Each structure stands twice: as structure tokens, then as C-alpha cells.
């Protein structure tokens, strides 16, 4: 049952075919068996998970029928969890136990889910390969020589390898969608403001959004139903009614206008990925959708603008890690400056320090106008591009990543790593919702397709994704190793 979707497990729990304790134990066993190889989890909460599962079973016996009651999940280790280690993949927080829960964590707790553990991630969510984690690389379940993508690599690998039924992730420039594509799972980045950021350790405040990583679009809808909504503790969260995202999954796609950005099918895109996405578009046409080319004129500027805005915000967001109040502090500081310097030099990894340097530089007196202000202008241009495109189409579809997962250690040049997110970053800059769903397998590795929607039009994206998954089975594909572990031929 561990390879089932949340919807299926939920039905089995409701029917009494299985208990939450049983399914939780099954996942814990699976983690024990595979996490040593995959390194998807930083922390596993064996005892508390079983207690929560027991409590869920008791609640069900008392008539509670919440859809996610008793479903085992994993949280990315960027969400603060009371009494459970929250490291953000960094030495800086290697010993940090939060005294409070993130709003997302609270919401899932209230929904009755079972926390299996905290998943590995790029340090402070800075990376596209999960190789910057202080707690070691995560391996791609399809091929353990390959990266799972990042920064939510642990969550994507855990879902792909059936170490959990569902997981949370966060996406600042593609950190849910790209690992979802690399691991062959469904990832969803909601509109900026849809999900509370309270308790989610900040990387770049104006771009960060939490979202689900699941085995299907329907599961993503179930998770979004729980995660979404106004939170007074987050001033950037938006006051809009939360619809039932599962309600519109089965809308027919006849007449749906799909925009295909020519800039996302240009040089640098691998032939296999292009073919897979074009095949998917053909599938949509069969379902009655109309395909239209759209022009995202300024999309070539998005990576540059992002690597000014995100590091600039990060440089300030990460200033609080100073060794004074919590987290890592260097040994025997001789004075304050020594404490700051060594704590931060030793506590942060290379990529985090690189981005703090870039951000500090971009905000410096005399450079602000040339970098930060200009990047904000580009951000508006990119948003305008989307607004224009969405006058003509309902969703925009293209590849999530230019290629399949690359080999661990193969990208040593930071800029080539930054270009990994070339199709995903613009979505964050514009604050839009977008999903990545599996769209094919090439050379034994999965590929992802990105579906971008209008602001707060999550329901439409889920509908478009779900319909595709009703007519194809790419989202059910597993690597041969995982299939074997599941006892399949």
C-alpha cells in the first residue's frame, strides 16, 4: 500500500482496510530499508509517528473522517517543528529544536496527519541538486548516481521511493518543481501569498512559497486544501477564500487554451524532454485543448534578476544566524568580531556564503540602483509578460527542466547550476502558481512538464494536471529499483 496515492490510502483507512498505525509502520520500515542509500531524511520520528498514528486511529474510531487523517507525511527540514530538530540542511542549525510549529505544520497536525520525519534539502534551500546539504547528498531513487534535484530533493526522493505518502516542499526559484521533475513525482508551487510562510525558514522572502510534493495531482489538491489560507502571522499571506481544490479536478478540457512559450523550447533544451512535452501537448489536443504559442519576451532576464533579488533578501534573512541566541557558535571566540566571523564561516557552507556575498554586494551603496533596483524592474517586466500571455490563454505549459537529472558532482560551476532553473524562476518572480508533473522517461530517468496558471488559479492547474494523469500513467512509473523494492516485477 505504500506506493499508493494519498487518495487511495485515505479510502483504505476510511474503509477500515488498513489502520494508520499499520501504514505508518510500513513507511517506517521502508525508511529503515532505503534511507541509508537515499539519505532523503535528516530526522526520522519513529516513536512520535506511531503515537500520532495511534491517535489518528482513535480519532477515526470516534467518528473523525478528515481526508488526511492518519496519512503519513514528511516535512522538508525548512519547516519549524516543535520538539523535532529543524536544521534547514545547515551546520548552523544542526542542533536547533524549534519551540514552535510552522503554520503549515500546525495545519497538517490539525488535519490529523502523521509526521514520519524531516527531509533533507539544500542548505537554506540554496541549490538545485541537494548537494549543498550539511547532512550529505540525497540520491535520486531512479539512479543513485544522479541528483534528486533541489532544494526539496529529500521530499521528492522520499515520495518517489515510497518513503512517505506525501511531503511538503518549498519553492523559491523551482525548488519544488525541479526535484519533482527529476524524481518523477508531482510538485506544486502555489501563488505567492496562498500558503503561510510563518515558521518556514526564510531564504528569499518575496519568492518563497510552500507547496506539496505528491504522487498525483489529486493528492496535491488534497494537500493544498489543508495548507492554503490566510494567516495573520504572515503579513504577505492573502485573504482569499480557499476553495476545495478537488472539486474541479474533473472539469473537461475542451476549449482549454494552452500557451506554449517559444522561449521555453529554445536552445539548451534536450531533445528527449522537448519530445516528451510535445507528446503531452498532443495528448491535450486530443482532449480538446487549443495550443497557442505565447511570447514571454523577457524570460531570458529571469535568472539574472533572480540571482540579484534572492541573494539580496537572503543576505539579510541569514544575518540572524550569528551564534548569539541559538544554533551553531564557534569554539572559544576571543571577541565579538571573532565570534561572528568564525561562527558564520564555519556554520554556513560554500553556496550559502557565496549567495550572502552576492546579495551583500548587490545591496551595497553605489551598486543598489545598478543591481537591486534594476532587478525589481525586470521583475515587473516578467510579470507583465505573463499578464499579457494570460489574456490569451488559460495555462502555460513547457518543460520543467531542460534535461533529466544529472550526475552527482557533475556541476562544479555555480552559474551552470543556476541555469538549472531557467524555466521555473520567472514563475516565482511573478508570484504565480505552477505545477510540475511527470511526462515521460528517457534513458531510465523521468522528465517533468511545467503547468503555469494565473494568479490564484491553482484549481485550473490541478484540473489540467489531473486530466492528463487520468489519460496517461507517467505519474505511476517507478524506477526498476523501487518497483523491485515494492515487490513488483
Amino acid at each position, binding site marked *: 500500500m505504500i506506493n499508493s496515492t494519498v487518495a487511495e490510502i485515505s479510502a483504505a483507512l476510511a474503509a477500515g482496510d488498513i489502520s494508520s498505525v499499520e501504514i505508518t509502520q510500513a513507511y517506517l520500515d521502508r525508511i529503515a530499508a532505503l534511507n541509508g542509500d537515499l539519505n532523503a531524511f535528516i530526522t526520522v520520528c519513529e516513536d512520535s509517528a506511531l503515537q500520532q498514528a495511534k491517535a489518528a486511529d482513535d480519532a477515526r474510531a470516534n467518528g473523525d473522517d478528515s481526508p488526511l487523517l492518519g496519512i503519513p507525511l514528511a516535512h522538508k527540514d525548512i519547516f519549524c517543528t516543535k520538539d523535532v530538530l*529543524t536544521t534547514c540542511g545547515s551546520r548552523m542549525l544542526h542542533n536547533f529544536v524549534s519551540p514552535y510549529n510552522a503554520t503549515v505544520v500546525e495545519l497538517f497536525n490539525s488535519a490529523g496527519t502523521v509526521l514520519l520525519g524531516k527531509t533533507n534539502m539544500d542548505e537554506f534551500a540554496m541549490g538545485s541538486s541537494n548537494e549543498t546539504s550539511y547532512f550529505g547528498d540525497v540520491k535520486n531513487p531512479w539512479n543513485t548516481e544522479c541528483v534528486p534535484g533541489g532544494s526539496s530533493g529529500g521530499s521528492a526522493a522520499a515520495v518517489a521511493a515510497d518513503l512517505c505518502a506525501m511531503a511538503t516542499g518549498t519553492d523559491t526559484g523551482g525548488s519544488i518543481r525541479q526535484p519533482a521533475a527529476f524524481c518523477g513525482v508531482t510538485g506544486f508551487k502555489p501563488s505567492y501569498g496562498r500558503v503561510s*510562510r510563518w515558521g518556514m525558514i526564510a531564504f528569499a522572502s518575496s519568492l518563497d512559497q510552500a507547496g506539496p510534493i505528491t504522487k498525483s495531482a489529486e493528492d496535491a489538491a488534497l494537500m493544498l486544501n489543508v495548507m492554503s489560507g490566510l494567516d495573520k502571522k504572515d*503579513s*504577505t499571506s492573502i485573504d482569499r477564500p480557499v476553495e476545495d481544490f478537488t472539486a474541479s479536478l474533473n472539469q473537461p478540457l475542451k476549449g482549454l487554451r494552452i500557451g506554449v512559450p517559444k522561449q521555453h523550447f529554445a536552445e539548451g533544451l534536450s531533445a528527449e524532454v522537448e519530445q516528451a512535452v510535445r507528446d503531452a501537448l498532443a495528448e491535450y489536443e486530443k482532449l480538446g485543448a487549443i495550443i497557442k504559442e505565447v511570447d514571454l519576451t523577457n524570460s531570458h532576464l529571469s535568472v539574472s534578476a533572480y540571482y540579484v533579488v534572492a541573494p539580496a*533578501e537572503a543576505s539579510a534573512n541569514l544575518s540572524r544566524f550569528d551564534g548569539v541566541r541559538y544554533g551553531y557558535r564557534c569554539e572559544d571566540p576571543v571577541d565579538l568580531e571573532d565570534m561572528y566571523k568564525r561562527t558564520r564561516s564555519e556554520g554556513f557552507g560554500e553556496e550559502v556564503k557565496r549567495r550572502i556575498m552576492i546579495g551583500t554586494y548587490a545591496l551595497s*551603496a553605489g551598486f543598489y540602483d545598478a543591481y537591486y533596483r534594476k532587478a525589481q524592474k525586470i521583475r515587473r517586466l516578467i510579470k507583465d509578460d505573463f499578464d499579457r500571455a494570460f489574456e490569451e490563454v488559460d495555462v502555460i505549459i513547457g518543460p520543467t527542466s531542460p534535461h533529466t537529472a544529472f550526475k552527482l558532482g557533475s556541476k562544479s560551476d555555480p552559474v551552470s547550476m543556476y541555469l538549472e532553473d531557467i524555466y521555473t524562476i520567472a514563475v516565482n518572480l511573478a508570484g504565480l502558481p505552477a505545477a510540475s508533473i511527470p511526462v515521460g522517461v528517457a534513458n531510465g530517468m523521468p522528465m517533468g512538464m511545467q503547468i503555469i496558471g494565473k494568479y490564484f488559479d491553482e484549481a485550473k492547474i490541478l484540473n489540467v494536471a489531473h486530466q492528463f494523469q487520468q489519460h496517461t500513467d507517467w505519474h505511476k512509473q517507478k524506477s526498476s529499483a523501487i518497483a523491485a523494492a515494492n515487490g513488483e516485477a
Partner: protein
Amino acid sequence: MEWETVIGLEVHVSLSTKSKLFSGSSTEFGAEPNTQANIFDCALPGTLPVFNEEALRMAVRFGVAIGAEIGKRSVFDRKNYFYPDLPKGYQVTQLDFPTVGKGALTVTLADGSEKVIGVTRAHIEENAGKSLHEEFHGMSGIDLNRAGEPLLEIVSEPEITSAEEAVAYLKKLHTIIRYLDISDAIMAQGSMRCDVNVSIRPKGETELGTRTEIKNINSFRFVEKAIYSEVERQQEILEDGGRIIQETRRYNADKDITTSMRSKEVANDYRYFPEPDLLPVVIDDEYIAAVKAQLPELPDARKARFMDEYALSNYDAGVLVSSREMAEYYEIVASKSGDSKLAANWVSQDLLGMLNKNNLEITDSPIQAERLATLIARIKDSTISGKIAKTVFEAMITEASDVDAIIEAKGLKQVTDSGEIEKLVLEVIENNPAQVQQYKDGKEQVIGFLVGQCMQLSKGKANPGQVNELLREKMQ
């Protein structure tokens, strides 16, 4: 060479909101260290700010009170620097879009003249915590109770030309803030702090000289002294052909000198940028009008009314409105005693002198307004003389019993019995033949001496009017 001084003031005022600027923690003064610091104040990872709109209302209240432009869209920025008492590693403030824009204050100087001093802006920002360097054996302690408290930083135009004007400006600011009830503004407790920017230039020169900034001065008197001392220092340097270094200095009150803190030439780059965790604060005309409608009577208006309604001099009215509590006290005394002029004298001289001597605030006065009014009423109805009233006043400081009881118990009631007064007058005429003769020779002013003698003889209790009248009668 003749020099002129140019001064600009930056005043930080702690807004008296119940909770902090971006968190629900209490702002009560004097709590145990770190008992008023929640997870946001400690900058735990993942915590986010939520703006306290009470601080906005208070800032706008100040803005409309000084006739300033109000920013309908204010934007918070992060000011980045590392210090252990700054938990987030940045201070949230308002750089380009402050809540309060250009306004002005009118101050009255010692010679009675008035001067308008421009206010450049006033912005909302958060306070830092406190570093404690004692009792920690070579380490420092951090108290975050104050971290995140709302401040209003009020920046003046460089239009102040002397220490006297600077103090007048500060006192006026203090008065207005107290009237508005937006801060305790107690300099000694740090709820009002002042940074002074000082430069000098040859008289008539239009370019500004290089300025120094004297940080964190905590009394009006020290502001005055610090300016004198800094102007003198700059003057000496320039007259010796030297150059002023732009820097931050601190005032050492014991030695009455300013000393260098750090050079601004290697200044911090604060890398300001808009705070992405907060939305811009947008208000409309309706909001501003509502705040304006709730303004109390402000000192200038009250002063004009006092001059008009109570026939007070410009000076007396100015003294009485200088604090809201004193003005309110005065109005009770004036209305209940029935003599606004006498009330003004008693409040501004006797009462204020007594309070200053005992280092008391008017709200803690041992003599309440109603009692002082009764005392004045007793002068008016001739129960006691003005002079005896001073004795009664002294007694009222330590005795809580009512005014009439004190007069009675001490036997201070004025002698108005004409028989008794006649006895006094006859005795004085008999004892002072020379002065009586002088009077009869036409030296009119001698009457004063003779009245004085009678008063002395009666231990001040005789009614001076009656004495005067009877003396003249008997000497005819």
C-alpha cells in the same frame, strides 16, 4: 572671525503602544531581562513581523499635530548591521517613504520672540535591545525586552542656530508629544533620546560646515551644554587652521566635553532595501481626518485661549501650557478660586518652585489643585493675607488636612476686628514719632513702613487694607 552655528536634531521617541512594533510582546518599562521577548523578538528562524497599527495612528497623530505632510503609502526598509542586541541583524525602519513628511514647530525664545523650525520627517522604526557589560565576567549579556519597541524618529531641518533654540525646540517637541499622549518622553528613562548634529561656519557663509553628530544625550541641560562645548571645540580647531572630521561623538557630562566615538568616514554601509516581509502601509484622507478629529487642544491653541479667557500674559500662559498636566491643574485652580491671575502666580511660582525643589512631577504634587484653589479663595475673601497664605501653603505640603482646618489650627486667620487693628495702629504711631512726623510733612511713602510695622506686630495677621486706612485716619 565671527561664527554662526548650524544645528539639526534627531529625536527618538518611544511610542507608548501596549505591544511592540511587530510582535505581541508587552512594552512595559522595567521588567526582568528577556521576559518581554517572544520568538519573533529573539529572531527565531521562520518568524515574521506583523505591523502594530497603533504605532501608525500615533505617528499620524504627531504628523497632523505639527501640520506635516502625511505619507499615504509608507514603506518599511531593512537597515542591515551586526550587533548582538539587534537579533535579526537588521533594523526595520522607513527610509524613502516615511509616515510623516515635512512639518514645522513654532518655538518661543527667552526674549519672547518666536521662531519656526522645520521638521524634515518623522519615521517609524524598531528599537534595538540592550547590551549589559557588567556582571558577566568578560562576557556581555543581552536583554531583548526593548528590542522591537516602536520608535518615532523626528528629524529637524538644520535651521537651529543656538543651544538655546535647540533646547526650546526639544521642549516644544516634548510638550506636544505629551499632549498627544503618544509617549512618556522621559529623557532620563530613554523614552526620548536626542542626537545633535552640529557644524559652524563663518557668519554670512551659505555653505554648511562639516558636521559632527553627538549621540544619545539624555537631558535638555546636557543638550545645551554639549552644544556649547562642541561649538567651542570646533571653533578652536578652525581658528587654529584645522579641519573638522565628520564623526560621531559622545558627550561626557562629568568633564563637560565631547569625545570621538567613531569616524563616519569609514561608516557602515547599511544596505537598505524594502522589507519584503511587510506590505506597504496605505492610508487614505478619511483615516487622516479621523486622527485629526481626535486631536486634543494643543499647546499653542491652549496658550492663546489662556491669554484670552484668563487674561494672562504671554509669558504666564506660556509657562502654564508647557505641560498638559500643569495646564489642566491650572484650569482647575483658576475656575475654583475665582481669580485666574492669582491662580497663575501661585501655580507658576509657588507650586512649581515647590515641585522643583522636591523633584516632583505635578501629577505627584502633595497639594492638589482643589486645595490650592481654596487657599486662593481664602485670600480673596480676606480670611488670610497673601503673606500668611505662604505659611499656609508650606503647611499644606506636609499636612493633608483641608485649608480651613490648617488656618484655624495655626491661628492664622486674619485680624479684621477694627478694635484690635486700632490698638495696633495706635501703638505703632506712638512708637514711631519721627516717621509719623515725616508723613504729616507730606512724605506719603512712609505709610508703607508704618503698615509694615503694624503687620509685624500682628505677626502678619492684620488685614493690610484696614491697617492702611486706619493709619491715615489717625495721622490726620
